[in-house]
């Protein structure tokens, strides 16, 4: 049970890291200002306009992105099913074990004396 909690904690830490990474890394991808050639510092001006070489939008093939999306879904779903299965199996096993111990203890314990001892 403790190892399952630890595994869940690791998974959730990873999820949190992923979520926060989106927030941290996203601005780096949010704006594509194009590439600039190397220039002499004195010649570059904030108001100068540089031509963008190549396409203005990211030319990313759709196939790998599609595979990545559906693959991520399958992997996450499989991971959650495994996590649920282990949680249920471990808990049910411990319930059965503790139940057996408590039943054995109840049978072994002497019954309380309700009536007065005979003279």
């Amino acid at each position, binding site marked *: *049970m403790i190892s399952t*909690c630890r595994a*869940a*904690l690791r998974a*959730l830490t990873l*999820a*949190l890291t*992923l*979520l926060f990474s*989106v*927030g941290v890394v*996203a601005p780096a*991808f*949010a*704006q*594509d200002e194009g590439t600039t050639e190397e220039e002499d510092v004195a010649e570059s001006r904030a108001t100068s306009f540089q031509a963008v070489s190549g396409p*203005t*939008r*990211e030319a*990313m093939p*759709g*196939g790998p*992105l*599609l595979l*990545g*999306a*559906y693959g*991520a*879904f399958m992997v*996450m*779903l499989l991971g*959650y099913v495994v996590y*649920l299965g282990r*949680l*249920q199996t471990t*808990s*049910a096993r*411990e*319930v059965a*074990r*503790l*139940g057996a*111990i*408590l039943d054995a*203890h109840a049978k072994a314990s002497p019954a309380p004396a309700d009536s007065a001892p005979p003279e």
Partner: protein
Amino acid sequence: MHGASNGPRGHLGLTVLAGLTTACGLASLWAIFVHAPVELQMGIVQKIFYFHVPSAYSVYVSVVVCVSGGVMYLWKRGPKWDALAVAGAEAALFFCLMVIITGPLWGARAWGTFWVWDPRLTTFLLASLIYTSVVVLRSIGGAGEAEKRFAAGLAVIGMPVLYITHLSVQLWRGQHPTVITGRGGGLHPDMVPALVLSFIFFTLLTALMIWARARAELTRHELEELEGQAAELGILEDA
């Protein structure tokens, strides 16, 4: 001390639901990759839509379950309501991650960028962080009464944020599209069966995940009660 959900009938019901969900999932994959045509402008990456939108819908369903369980737990304090709240929160987190992973992958092709601080994306990220907090709190905070009540309250707070996410495309300008509208949606007729099947699949999957997780949580609650009894009898160290 097994409830209906943990007994043999519950196990059978869960198995039947799992079988139905698997069959529907396979059917939806067939409809998406074989039946539905490729979109004209975005190309094949548009097919992410068939899992992205139902994932967002599943977030809403899971949050409603989580909040309902949380409110009922705050009111009545029964273990089954707590189990429902936990299950709903974990399912909501799962589907939130799905939306946040599939959306940027689609956006990289459709918008030319993985992320923009669009109102819908930003508010959805905020809602995701709230439900991540709920799950983390219940996972590492123990099963104390204070943690349960705080997590339930946090889940209730997250619901208005999600509602704002839903309204954001109407309230504010942004980049996120509205494909499915009150006028029927901008979908080619051959794409509709894939979307409908995906919605059915995700509905069944959400129900299955919540049921299975709630069942596991009830078993864990039962275990805690037995551990309490064993501790009272002084036999816990032998267990």
